[in-house]
């Protein structure tokens, strides 16, 4: 038990076959107390949630709800080894995300025909995809923009690595080929299993990241529209999003989506609210830019899975609509500056500076924490955090109202992941090497999500370019939502093998090299 960073053998915290770790981490009096107080806050959030009878009912109705028992453990996984400002940054991000997801669940069950059945509330709900940019909801302050897929599949897998397996199996038993991406596959499985809350005045689907997500929506919309009677608008975002000659198409889709929402909810688009949200989006962009700027120096502060998860939530799911995230941005920036000025580091030893590219494994999001603690590989930034940095028009003028339509279209086209998996090889391949140079990285950890065709379709070119540039390229294969294909240890072994055989290095913390966490949350 040690106060100093890196004194603990983190592997000793795991127990064979256990879902949770043996004990909490001792971080010194101040940090342990802080961490424990945050743990209590999380328990309070969960407790408050379960006080409502409709939520208890939902807990037993929806299979995936059981995964939410693992919330505190998820935070613990991401705070491993953190002290001082790093610990506080992590909690600021994660606790806010937890609070946001708890509210999302509460709202879903409030309107759900099977549990809360608040019909008046349901009329004010617009359903959106899990991986969808919510820009089109920025001007509807009185409506609730809710995603059913976020809690049922996306967050569930972050909490419990085995959460999606049942739904993947359901989809395959129904006849879906086993080689498609498990994310839309699991979402389709939830729909086939009829295991999603039923509510809403209408739904907005989008061709988000890939062919799989586009087609998976077809399964969901069939149930929504034909069985549940909830009208669905398919928002088609162009794939070649960097091209000028697709922007008018994208903008018209936004206009059509807004008109569809107005028609089905009776609400009117509010420009004042939109521009307020746009200001918050711009602020979040500036903060993210500042953090990334720090990460180019020897003293990165906001990085790893925290950066990825927070960016994904704030940039895409929130999109300026919730003021609490602006407050969190401010707090995180302040803590980061503070640590940067003191030249603080998050781990005992920094050996390699890495760009994390590709689509990360959802069942092992804390892999980046492991990289740092086990091998001293600093995950400076990742593909999902390298999103649009374009500033939105934020003053309400007639010209800006027209610009705003194009801004929303741009954000929708550039939602997380799709801004790299679509748009041609320049955004996926060429820009990686530019980032490698900008961040002074000597290593690229390339998540090879095996069923992501857009990514694996550049496999050979990644290899060729890395060889030309003399960058260490480490492939980490995984199957996104399904640890039965490649386990967490299987993921780690790919790094272990590279570091030992190619780099000829020894781990900083050997206890982390092999972990028996097959059953762990």
């Amino acid at each position, binding site marked *: 038990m040690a106060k100093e960073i890196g004194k603990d053998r983190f592997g000793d915290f795991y127990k064979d076959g256990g879902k949770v770790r043996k004990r909490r981490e001792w971080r010194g009096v101040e940090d342990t107390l802080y961490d424990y107080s945050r743990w209590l806050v999380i328990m309070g959030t969960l407790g408050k949630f379960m006080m409502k009878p409709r939520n208890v009912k939902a807990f037993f109705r929806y299979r995936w709800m059981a995964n939410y028992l693992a919330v505190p453990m998820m935070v613990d996984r991401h705070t491993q080894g953190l002290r001082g400002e790093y610990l506080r940054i992590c909690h600021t991000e994660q606790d806010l995300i937890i609070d946001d997801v708890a509210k999302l669940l509460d709202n879903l069950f409030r309107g759900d025909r099977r549990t809360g059945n608040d019909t008046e509330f349901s009329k004010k709900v617009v359903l959106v995809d899990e991986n969808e940019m919510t820009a089109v909801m920025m001007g509807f302050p009185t409506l609730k923009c809710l995603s059913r897929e976020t809690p049922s599949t996306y967050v569930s897998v972050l909490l419990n690595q085995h959460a999606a397996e049942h739904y993947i199996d359901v989809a395959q038993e129904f006849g879906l080929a086993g080689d498609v991406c498990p994310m839309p596959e699991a979402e389709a499985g939830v729909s086939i299993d009829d295991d999603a809350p039923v509510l809403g005045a209408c739904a907005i689907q989008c061709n988000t990241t890939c062919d799989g997500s586009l087609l998976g*929506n077809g399964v969901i919309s069939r149930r929504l529209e034909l069985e549940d009677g909830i009208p669905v608008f398919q928002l088609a975002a162009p794939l070649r999003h960097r091209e000028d000659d697709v922007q008018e*198409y994208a903008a018209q889709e936004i206009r059509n989506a807004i008109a569809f929402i107005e028609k089905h909810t009776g609400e009117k688009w509010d420009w004042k609210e939109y521009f307020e949200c746009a200001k918050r989006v711009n602020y979040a962009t500036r903060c993210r830019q500042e953090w990334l700027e720090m990460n180019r120096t020897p003293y990165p502060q906001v990085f790893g899975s925290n950066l990825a998860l927070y960016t994904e939530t704030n940039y895409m799911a929130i999109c300026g609509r919730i003021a609490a995230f602006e407050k969190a941005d401010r707090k995180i920036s302040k803590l980061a500056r503070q640590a940067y000025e003191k030249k603080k580091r998050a781990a005992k030893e920094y050996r390699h500076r890495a760009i994390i590219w590709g689509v990360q494994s959802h069942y092992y999001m804390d892999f980046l924490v492991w990289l740092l603690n086990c091998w001293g590989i600093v995950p400076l930034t990742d593909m999902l955090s390298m999103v649009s940095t374009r500033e939105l028009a934020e003053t309400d003028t007639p010209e800006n109202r027209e610009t705003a339509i194009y801004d929303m279209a741009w954000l929708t086209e550039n939602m997380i992941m799709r801004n790299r998996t679509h748009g*041609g090889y320049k955004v996926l391949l060429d820009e990686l090497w530019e980032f490698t140079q900008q961040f002074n990285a000597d290593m690229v950890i390339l998540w090879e999500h095996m069923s992501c065709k857009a990514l694996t379709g550049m496999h*050979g070119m990644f290899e060729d370019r890395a060889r030309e540039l003399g960058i260490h390229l480490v492939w980490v294969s995984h199957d996104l939502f399904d640890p039965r294909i490649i386990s967490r240890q299987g993921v780690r072994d790919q790094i272990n093998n590279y570091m030992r055989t190619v780099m000829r290095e020894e781990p900083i913390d050997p206890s982390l090299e092999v972990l028996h966490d097959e059953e762990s949350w």
Partner: protein
Amino acid sequence: MKDLKHLIYFEQLLLEANNELIRQAREDGKICVAYTCENTPEPLMNLPGTFSARLRAPRTGSMEVATYYLTSFLCEYSRALLERAIEGGYSFADCIITPDGCSMMNRCVENMELLKTMGKDKPKFFYEYMEIPMKGDDNGLNLYVLQCRNHILKPLAEHYGIDISDAAIRKAVAEHNKVCELIRAIGEYRKDEQPRITGYEFHILTLATYACPKYLLIDKLEETLEELKTREPDEKFPYRARVVVVGSEVDDLDFIKLIEDSGAYVCADRFCYGSLPGRDPIVLTDDEDALTQICRQYMQRAECPRYMDMPKMQGRRQYVADTAKEYGADGIIYEQMKFCDPWAYEKMLGSHILREDFGYPVLAVDRPYSIATSGQMRTRVQAFVESMEIKKIQKEGVANG
């Protein structure tokens, strides 16, 4: 039945990507526009002075180099094309135009470009990538028109001085329609109770119209149509059931043959490289420019699963049911190439809907690019044929009391 006079000729054409007619058209001084996806309007690539060739990789063997670049998780069609491109098998092309129809096709062509597989000795060679609509609406039409103008017509005019006027497009449509009408007329014979053309023979003819310059095929297709008018069908229908094949890209000669060898007559072809709806003639009027009319008809008739709006999704399944009814099918075979995302989903939903809502027996299979003599596939088709026969017998039993 007596063999079709030109069948071997057509089969020979399909054994090479760089076939005899492509060589002849190039000797005629025509520009070869290579393409990979059915969503690229063909008449726009068959303007005076150009001809289109939809890329295939017949007699594909090893795909090791392409598998290194694309991994084994991409469909074999995209890998086979890349492998052939790396081998220099598409040196006849003067440009390549591809929409982002699916991620795999996009990556395949991007790798062709990055690896400089084509156009080394052709300074005017170009690669063009197009955005195509995902919904059948006015916004989609505007996009389609703009994209065809910017990524097909303009580059052809700028690089090769091709006439892209409305008159030139109309001329191309007329030639395109001639081929479509011939294929359609030949295909009509598949509706007969005693068909005078096999599904395999029809597949060969249709496939040739995608892979060869159309204007060089017309006389042989006309002769074949004439021949069919007097061709005597077999006295007894030699198959045990009639099926519609629905699904992803099929340019393999053996797949349809295998199905028919297993006892199922392929009476209709609703797949990429098939004639439904790929060989629907394009009807032009004089009150609107030809480009817009072509795009509208391509968009409206498209049966590609990348179209994501509800009317299109519902329409796809209705189209299959209508086709099955029109061609007197007993059952439907949904096929997808392994690793094809769009058809994986469409096959899953389509097979349930056609079975449950429309009452057709359905077989859903996935397959490699080149099926050759797959015992597994043969067994599955045979079992499907048997199941349809049993259902028929049971139905007849009920009808007879």
